[in-house]
């Protein structure tokens, strides 16, 4: 199974009236959607507004989602449409990102271009984001080699557990354990940074 199957299961449960299942999709994709919206909209408050609108529209349109496409391509398309509608609405400020047209071609599924949120954030928020990024980098560097390799193959390369087991020549149970321990080590370093009510990350 892939994580797309998990998404499909969550969508089906949301369609059957389980709002908590939809919330799990929001928790999974909200940052990716925010990041995508930030390519079109500069102000952080407006980014959150458009992101929220995208998820609400997706929820309302759930009865039309048959699962032929992946959920993330569907929600990205909705988010792009929401952002474009927002920009074209009267009285809105249009941010002329030079890469706007180019970015649109990939359906918002790549995030190489580092534009958007950094410009949109306040200095405090920017500092907090930088602090988190540095903490994650330090935590990654401090990981044992096999844990770092396993979590990198999963999170960055997108390999399945079977593929990682083959690449690292180890049982799949070992892959599960390594990825989990790597995530735990990083989460442990991050928790002190996330533990205030004012700094809600999700």
């Amino acid at each position, binding site marked *: 199974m892939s994580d797309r199957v998990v998404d499909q299961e969550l969508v089906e449960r949301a369609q059957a009236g389980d709002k908590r299942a939809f919330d799990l999709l929001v928790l999974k994709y909200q*940052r990716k959607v925010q*990041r995508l919206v930030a390519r079109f909209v500069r102000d952080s408050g407006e980014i959150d507004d458009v992101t929220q609108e995208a*998820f609400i529209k997706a929820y309302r349109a759930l009865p039309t989602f048959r699962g032929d496409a992946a959920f993330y391509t569907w929600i990205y398309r909705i988010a792009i449409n929401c952002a474009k509608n927002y920009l074209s609405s009267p009285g809105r400020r249009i941010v002329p990102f030079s890469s706007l047209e180019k970015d649109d071609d990939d359906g918002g599924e790549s995030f190489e271009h580092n534009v958007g949120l950094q410009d949109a954030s306040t200095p405090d928020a920017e500092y907090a984001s930088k602090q988190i990024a540095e903490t994650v980098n330090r935590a990654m560097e401090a990981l044992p080699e096999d844990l770092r390799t396993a979590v990198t193959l999963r999170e960055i390369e997108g390999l399945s557990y079977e593929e990682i087991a083959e690449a690292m020549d180890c049982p799949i149970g070992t892959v599960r354990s390594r990825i*989990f321990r790597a995530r735990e080590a990083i989460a442990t370093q991050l928790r002190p940074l996330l533990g205030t009510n004012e700094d809600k990350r999700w």
Partner: protein
Amino acid sequence: MANVNVINGAGQLPPATREQISRWMDGDIAPHEIDLAMATLSKEDNRYCWAEMHFVGDCIRGIEPTASGCAERIRAAIAAEPTIMAPVARVARERAALKDNALFGAMRQMGRGGRAWATAAAVAAVGFVGTVVYQDQMRGAQLAVAPAVNAGVAQARSADFNALLQAHQESADATSLSSVRQYMRPAVAIQTQ
């Protein structure tokens, strides 16, 4: 969703549960585990763990942490929405699975001997249909040739008849109508007028 709960909630979950959530979010989940996973993730603390692990993953991928998450406000907005009851995706998936299962299930139930007979029957059916189609095509070709032959015969008959008619006219002109020829021209002229 206050982040203090991340510390007091997800951080204190049993490691086995956290490891399960870690692998479930990557799609490493057996079909029989899906109900368990959904029941587990419906609990608040486990949802924090889910959110936290995805946050870690996003950070590793270099997606900059946003100034604030908006899941809480989205959750509040969704709570105000009417509950959806439209299991279209499940119906579509089950219908597709049913179609596949009907065919493969029937094949499975036949066993090895049954499958051999089914294969032989399929080959025989294809051969039979092929023969019928071939015969139909041949019959069609013959029917297509027949009008051409008939046309040729008709053309030959027409030529013979014209020759006969011409000969008859010549002889008639010379013999039988000679006595009335003086009356024919005005009659023909009247007809043409």
